[in-house]
């Protein structure tokens, strides 16, 4: 049977990345289909964030290729010094562990900035779109507040909305609940679940195993910069094949 590559939204091929002598990612391959939710779990400091950062274009790969809808992400240059396609980069949205809202701008201004300056929407169009997103995450009453007046959970929901204004085709979530107090985690996961139910393609690095089981189409266990095991969540969580996976998951029981 011929493999239909059109099914894949993003293909990451043979990604390698090291910081000095530390090999963070090696021989890393991952395909994500349209509308697929891929959850990446694994010990801290073993390349999960770096993977997302390479996809977002915040980190340069040492080697490897990324294709988005079969178009190459790297448009010129070779390893370590290359140009990525801005057009493709704009299809990718990212949410960070530390929220990274712009502190000098109100909630609404945080959402408007790139919509107006990058997407070139009119003020009115961008405002309406932002307002709808804020309504969706239940924070329209906070639109004129500065981020410092929001709780961590609210900040992270705004950060998700800020990424969504740009109409990304895939969303990257980098341990977005790790910096939150336990009672604030659910409100952020709820927003992500809603997003998943609307068919967003998602690549999620998380320690929330409940969320991984609930939302993931595929769960990847990553250690030492490479994929140790992957599978459907119900299979991987209940019957992991690899010893390292079992060891890691035992911490969450």
């Amino acid at each position, binding site marked *: 049977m011929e493999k239909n590559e059109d099914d894949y939204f993003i293909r990451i091929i043979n990604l390698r990345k090291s910081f000095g002598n530390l090999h963070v990612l090696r021989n890393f391959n991952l395909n994500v289909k349209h509308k697929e939710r891929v959850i990446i779990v694994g010990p801290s400091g073993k390349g999960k964030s770096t993977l997302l950062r390479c996809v*977002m*274009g*915040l980190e340069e790969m040492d080697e490897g290729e990324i294709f988005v809808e079969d178009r190459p992400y790297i448009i010129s240059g070779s390893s370590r010094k290359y140009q990525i396609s*801005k057009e493709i*980069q*704009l299809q*990718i*949205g*990212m949410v*960070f562990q*530390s*929220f*990274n*809202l*712009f*502190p*000098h701008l109100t909630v609404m201004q945080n959402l408007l*900035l*790139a919509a107006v*300056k*990058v*997407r070139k929407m009119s003020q009115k169009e961008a405002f309406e779109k932002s307002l709808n997103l804020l309504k969706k995450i239940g924070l329209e009453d906070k639109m004129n507040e*500065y*981020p*410092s007046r929001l709780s961590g959970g609210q*900040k992270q929901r705004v950060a998700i909305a*800020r*990424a969504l204004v*740009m109409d990304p085709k895939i969303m990257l979530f980098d341990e977005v609940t790790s910096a939150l107090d336990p009672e604030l985690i659910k409100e952020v996961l709820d927003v992500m679940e809603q997003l998943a139910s609307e068919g967003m393609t998602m690549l999620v690095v998380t320690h929330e195993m409940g969320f991984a089981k609930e939302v993931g189409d595929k769960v990847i266990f990553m250690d030492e910069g490479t994929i140790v095991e992957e599978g459907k969540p119900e299979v991987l969580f209940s019957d992991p094949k690899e010893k390292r996976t079992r060891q890691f998951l035992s911490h969450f029981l």
Partner: protein
Amino acid sequence: MGYKFSFDVIWENADVLISGFWVTLQITGISIVLGLLLGALIAILRLSRNFVLSKITAGYIEFFRCTPVLVQLVWIFYCLPIVLRIELTNFISSIIALTLYVGATYGEAFRSGIQAVSKDQIEAGIALGLSSAQRTRYIILPQAVRIIIPVLLSNSISLFKESSLVSTVGMNDLMYKGRLLSATTFRPIEILTTVAMIYFVFAFPIALITRKLEVKLAKKLER
């Protein structure tokens, strides 16, 4: 028989002190404006990726920050005309020296303010597709300015006081007039105290505003 304070001498010579203060304000004001321009240029060079330019600028900054302003003044007043074979009035050489000095401190304030904006903020900008120029314009500079303004104000107060050194190259500023009057009236205590009060009355409110502003602006940058 003790010393009898007499402040009459102040009122009699008020016009002399006022004309001196006017010169002080001119010299400080012009040096601040030119220093801001120089400081901005210095910060750009210091932060440039060109290693040589960056290091030369760093050398300039450290030289002017770490040597006495008095020496800088004297050097520019006496030596620069010899080296460049030009004539400089003491007004011009005072401006040059103070501008070079304050430009170095402003430049350092600009640099540290810009670098104080966290990498996370820049990355959030990249993830939203903002170009490098847009990130500078909409993310880095607005945040840096809030960090920089109190530092600039505090540097400017220092410059205002340091400007009294121009009296040593014969510039007829407030300090010069004060010393002149002290010598001619034999009332140095009254006159120098008054001179100090004039500096204080002008600088203290700015120092207060700086403190208030610092707290207020820092609050705005809380995340």
